[in-house]
């Protein structure tokens, strides 16, 4: 696979792999079990540029391309998907919209601490009554003097428990067209900003996914991102990019599970031979490797198109749909190859299996992706 990548991209991969193996591999099981966010590693990642992957140098970022970004998310997720989630959401749906839609003052104020990982970003769209249908949001931001008074009930916020800078999707004109939503940036610590309990999740447990509520929270008018009514466009632009990240994450989970399965099939003996000699096991391994490969290729293509400044939204939707579904199949086969041990916490494949499952749900479910892709074809 790497033979199609440039030397720069291969060095990106090796650097991230070395870091993930050394810093994340030893704790991945424990932080999943304890549902603990590993600040000690996150701080190191912040100093190494992981939280500003595509942010320009002058704003404190690493200024890399989308292909590097995909490789980085893939490599982190290969070892620890929860941290892959933290990094992809922060970069693609929190920092990137500020870069794309923020004013110069907003960028100068918010981006540098985010790019260095000193502050963590979050994207707060989903509400109890608005999931796939984002236009169903009920949160409001009503102008009052120099500020918006925001009332919001956001759920399933990735990084929610640790986020400082939150993009909150709101209606500024309740009763008007529901598509006319807006985005305000609210900072933790503002009066009325409340972080709810962590979600007790099936997978991605080391990510502090939680609810965030704003009660009559006063957010300065200057914290409006873009213009009023531009929210849907901001959200969709963010998600186009975010999908490359989720596709990369899925490919990384698949790669990690494949490696575990290969290692196990070599050492486990049944019927007098290593189980890798059994044709049924080989057939699963071949299937897994092919799915991983296809996932990576689709992801890299979407990223490369974005780097070339070409339209990539259809390709990133297809990559996300394919790679997320593939990662469920791959991790399922990895569990199967491990037999009973695969269903036990003794081996990491059960974690990969749980982590993979949600990639088909967040940043747009598979069903919604099929809708989007079909719509793109029937234009």
């Amino acid at each position, binding site marked *: 696979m*790497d*033979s199609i990548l*440039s*030397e*720069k991209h*291969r*060095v*990106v991969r*090796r*650097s991230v792999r*070395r*870091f993930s193996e050394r810093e994340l591999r030893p704790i991945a099981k424990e932080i999943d079990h304890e549902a603990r966010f590993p600040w000690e590693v996150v701080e*190191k990642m912040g*100093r*190494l*540029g*992981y939280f500003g*992957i595509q942010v320009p*140098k002058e704003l404190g*970022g*690493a*200024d*890399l391309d989308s292909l*590097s970004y995909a490789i*980085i998310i893939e490599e982190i997720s290969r070892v620890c998907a929860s941290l892959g989630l933290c990094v992809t959401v922060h970069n693609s749906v929190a920092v990137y919209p500020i870069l794309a839609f923020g004013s110069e003052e907003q960028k100068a104020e918010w981006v540098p601490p985010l790019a260095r990982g000193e502050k963590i970003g979050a994207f707060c769209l989903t509400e109890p009554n608005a999931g796939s249908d984002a236009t169903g949001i009920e949160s409001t931001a009503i102008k009052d003097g120099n500020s918006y008074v925001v009332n919001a009930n956001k759920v399933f916020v990735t990084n929610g428990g640790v986020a400082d800078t939150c993009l909150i999707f709101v209606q500024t004109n309740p009763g008007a067209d529901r598509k006319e939503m807006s985005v305000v940036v609210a900072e933790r610590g503002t009066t009325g900003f409340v972080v709810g309990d962590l979600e007790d999740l099936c997978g991605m447990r080391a990510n502090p996914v939680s609810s965030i509520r704003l009660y009559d929270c006063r957010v300065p008018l200057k914290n409006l991102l873009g213009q009023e009514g531009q929210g849907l466009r901001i959200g969709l632009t963010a998600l186009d990019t975010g999908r490359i990240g989720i596709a990369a994450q899925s490919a990384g989970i698949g790669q990690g599970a494949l490696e575990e399965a290969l290692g196990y099939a070599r050492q486990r003996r049944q019927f007098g031979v290593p189980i890798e000699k059994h044709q049924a096991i080989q057939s699963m391994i071949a299937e897994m490797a092919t799915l991983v490969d296809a996932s990576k290729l689709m992801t890299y293509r979407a990223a490369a198109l974005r780097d070339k400044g070409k339209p990539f939204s259809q390709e990133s939707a297809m990559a996300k749909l394919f790679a997320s579904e593939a990662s469920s199949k791959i991790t399922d086969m990895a569990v199967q190859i491990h037999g009973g041990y695969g269903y036990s916490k003794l081996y990491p494949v059960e974690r990969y299996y749980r982590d993979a499952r949600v990639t088909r749900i967040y940043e747009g479910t598979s069903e919604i992706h099929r809708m989007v892709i079909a719509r793109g074809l029937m234009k």
Partner: protein
Amino acid sequence: MHIIVCIKSVIVKAPEAGMVRSHDSTELNPFDRPVLETALRIKEARGGITTALSMGPESSISVLSEARAMGLDRGVLACDPALAGSDTLATSTALAAAIDKLRPFDLVLFGTRTSDSDTGQVGPQAALLLGIPLVTQVHSIEYIDSGLYVERTVDGFIEKFELSFPAALTIHPASVQPRDIDLADIGPAFEKQDTKIWNLGDLELSPDQVGDAGSPTKVLSISKSKRHKRCEFIKGDTLEQADELIKRLAESGMIG
């Protein structure tokens, strides 16, 4: 202070037949990473400039770029078709010629070994050709006015040497933890290519000194060695099994 670090692009996978070094089959020799770290620490403590030097085909530019991403100031590649097939002596000859051209220098650092050929000969041979003192397997360095105190551990003894510049060291791979590359430094290191490439003429070498012609060692063939593993179950009750196991281990010299 001018520190030169010699690094190699190594083959990642064991060769099946005929060695070909290309972009996707090679990487920076892992034993060179601590050497680069050592050079950066000396520079941070004493100031100066660091040069990464490699001999190899053009694809080796990649490891020099990686060294620059890690923080080295510049890269130099000794590269010429006539260098192909060089053994350790011919390699040392080419490196010594390049180092000579990089004068003035204070320190030349090498790894102790490479992951794809593992002779450990290049550092010592190059130092000999340059006529400078050498200490191998160095694991700690202390700065003094006249040069360095360095330590190495051999046969259970710690040897401490005083060195004056210019000198050469091979650095023990476990002596320092190499730093992580800052993602922000990767782009510039690869995109702004200013690696110097020196051919045989630049190095003032003749074709018979290097490559196949200049190599007294001829590798006739390379094939995978087979490991013979045998599994045997020791019989008897637990006590008998333990006694038998200890006897066998003692007989084989694995325990004293």
